[in-house]
């Protein structure tokens, strides 16, 4: 039993923190929010240069071959600084599907680009994505909601069902967003988070569009979703830890009634409760990451981490706005950036209720 980070992970954390504090100030977060595309191209290129876009991808595709625990360390830092961009969507969620289900050729075609940042992938799910056979090939029709970063993505991985008849399970197909019949409409979202309604109007799929086997996409999808969910927990953990540090610092400096408000037990106890919640989610998240790294079954542990991360998000929001109080109700103050993204994170990849429902009792 050893809950300490390795020497390499400590170095990763330190260098990531230094880099992001310098390169991702809240002014950048605000600028990206205003731009509406959820992307900071310069930062993205620099992150690629640091190897972060392939942190948990194998070295043969240019990745750094890190563990999920390494990835967790990095995403804590991403969360602290509200780093924008499709890192979780493209490099973790979608890239893991390609890695798990793709042919050698598909991996060679896509993954080096994901690692270098030139290729951005996303995932479309939902009940309404249907494939049909025509002229010996497949076509795709239907729509999917809440597709993250579809505006930037060169390809969308779609989890599909057949229009007629029944496959035992989903088929994963790769769709070029430049193909005719792919229509992307931004959904107006909290903090301009770039999520899209994507419609597919009888899009013909090339012969090599299927990732893996027909009707056998579920295991690869589930595996990728688990890993992305852990990354989302880590992002939430880092964000909540940062809110905690922000409010503790503020409470130590803000003087009312002739003394710092941090001397009041009402304030201290709110901070203590947030600290307890942060510590709990840290243990749950690293446990889930470690189990996946070990190849152990981790569905329950991942769901427990994500369920509790949702609760943590809400606690951080409440503590932040309570202690910063009036000033945090202004757009100018950074707290609102944290609370807005807390809601995005909570809803992404299953909220607390969904994940509690996954627990075997």
């Amino acid at each position, binding site marked *: *039993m*050893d*809950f*300490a*980070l*390795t020497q390499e992970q400590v170095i990763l954390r330190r260098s990531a923190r230094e880099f992001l504090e310098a390169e991702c100030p809240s002014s950048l977060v605000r600028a990206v929010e205003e731009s509406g595309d959820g992307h900071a191209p310069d930062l993205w290129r620099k992150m690629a240069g640091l190897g972060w876009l392939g942190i948990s991808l194998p070295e043969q595709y240019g990745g750094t071959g890190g563990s999920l*625990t390494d990835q967790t360390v990095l995403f804590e830092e991403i969360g602290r600084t509200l780093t924008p961009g499709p890192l979780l969507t493209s490099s973790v969620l979608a890239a893991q599907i390609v890695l798990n289900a793709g042919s050698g050729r598909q991996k060679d075609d896509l993954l080096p680009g994901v690692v270098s940042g030139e290729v951005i992938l996303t995932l479309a799910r939902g009940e309404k994505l249907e494939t049909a056979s025509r002229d010996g090939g497949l076509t795709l029709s239907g729509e999917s909601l809440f597709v993250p970063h579809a505006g930037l993505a060169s390809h969308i991985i779609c989890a599909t069902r057949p229009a007629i008849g029944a496959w035992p399970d989903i088929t994963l197909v790769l769709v070029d967003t430049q193909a005719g019949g792919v229509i992307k409409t931004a959904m107006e979202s909290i903090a301009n988070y770039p999520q899209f309604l994507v419609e597919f109007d009888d899009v013909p799929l090339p012969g090599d569009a299927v990732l893996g086997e027909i009707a056998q996409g579920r295991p690869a999808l589930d595996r990728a979703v688990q890993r992305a969910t852990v990354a989302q927990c880590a992002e939430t953990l880092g964000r909540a830890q940062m809110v*905690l540090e922000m409010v*503790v610092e503020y*409470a*130590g400096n803000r003087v009312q009634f002739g003394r*710092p408000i*941090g*001397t009041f*037990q009402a*304030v*201290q*106890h709110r*901070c*203590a*409760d947030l*600290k*307890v919640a942060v*510590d*709990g989610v840290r*243990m*749950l998240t*690293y*446990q889930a*990451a*470690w*189990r996946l790294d*070990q190849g152990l079954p981790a569905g329950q542990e991942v769901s*427990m981490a994500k*369920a*509790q991360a949702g609760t943590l998000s809400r606690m951080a929001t409440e503590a932040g706005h309570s202690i910063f109080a009036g000033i945090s109700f202004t757009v100018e103050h950074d707290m609102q950036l944290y609370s807005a993204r807390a809601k995005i994170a909570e809803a992404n990849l299953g909220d607390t*209720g969904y994940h*509690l*429902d996954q*627990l075997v*009792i």
Partner: protein
Amino acid sequence: MDFNFTTQQSEFREELRDFLRAEVPQEKQEVFGLLTEEQYQFGRKINRKLAARNWLAVGWPQEHGGGGKGPIEQGILAEDLGYWRVPKSGSIGLGIVGPAIMVFGTQDQKERYLSPIARGEVEYCQGFSEPNVGSDLASLELRAERDGDEYVLNGSKMFTSYAYHADYMYLLARTDPQAQKHRGISLFIADLKTPGISLQPLPYINGEMAAQTFFDNVRLPLSCLIGEENRGWYHAMTTLDYERSGLWRYANVRRVFDDFAEFCQGSAPDGGQPLAGHPMVRHQLAQRRLGMETWKLLCWNVAWMQSSGAVPNAEASVAFLYGSEERLRFAEMAMEVLGPYATLRHGSPLAPLLGNIEGIHREAMHLHGAGTNEIHRNIIAQRGLGMPR
């Protein structure tokens, strides 16, 4: 990062479980809120059998009669004894007194006190709280005056758990009333058979018989002083951190949660559909399942810190606070789910789970051990987060 036990630790756990399966039948296991004298004595017997295998003080050094292992093995032992509901005994000696003597005791004190604790032969109680002294413990009033080669103790201690089974009390007394309050306190071990010590029964709501302990001109030899005179506060606070994982308490509650979750799968007490079939009950069970997991990890975090040589401080308060509140959340949830059946006590043929739910609900009112929850929040805020005093 490693959430696994070593092979040797896993083997220890398996051997321990084999032992418990063989030695602790269902009818001997403690029911919450109903500790009989027979069960307590059974717990002492189990402790002596564990000691015979060098498992009781498994984390103590071998030179003091221990098993020579570490805090992780101690955690494994605590978790399994709690889960098997072995009636608790000896915990103050093993967890608090022994470690303090190892650090602050003289050679003579080590030889006199440690081995009987490790063998499970003695019971200790703790004399910290007083009638006027709770959270502000350093303002304690029980007086110990030096008189020749003796100390003379006058005053009283409150909330003395295990008093009626204990051989010794580990206590704090004021030796210098002129000094600043933290700097006039000393640590003693008092033989409870010493003339002048008397007990007044103080029944607890969890069924336990505790006491108020009175000291009337109690004369203790100088050799009963542990550590330096007037440094007792600091000695006691340092050693409180030695045994703080709280895994026994976690596992003791977890067992009831597991039993309750299983109970909810069967037909309801009124013969209706299984309780777990109700979406709201399922949701509540899932919430508590998550709460139990979080509690467990926070406890193991403390044990791991100890095993790595660190002294948990705010981390122990995090685990303790979380545990107290999670235990109460579970107890309230289970009571709510059971409806009127929750009001039936042990002994009623209709009491679900032998009345353990009603019992754990009373136990869950214990929101003050090792400091109230508010004191733990103060510790987390001030020592953990560095907030101003």
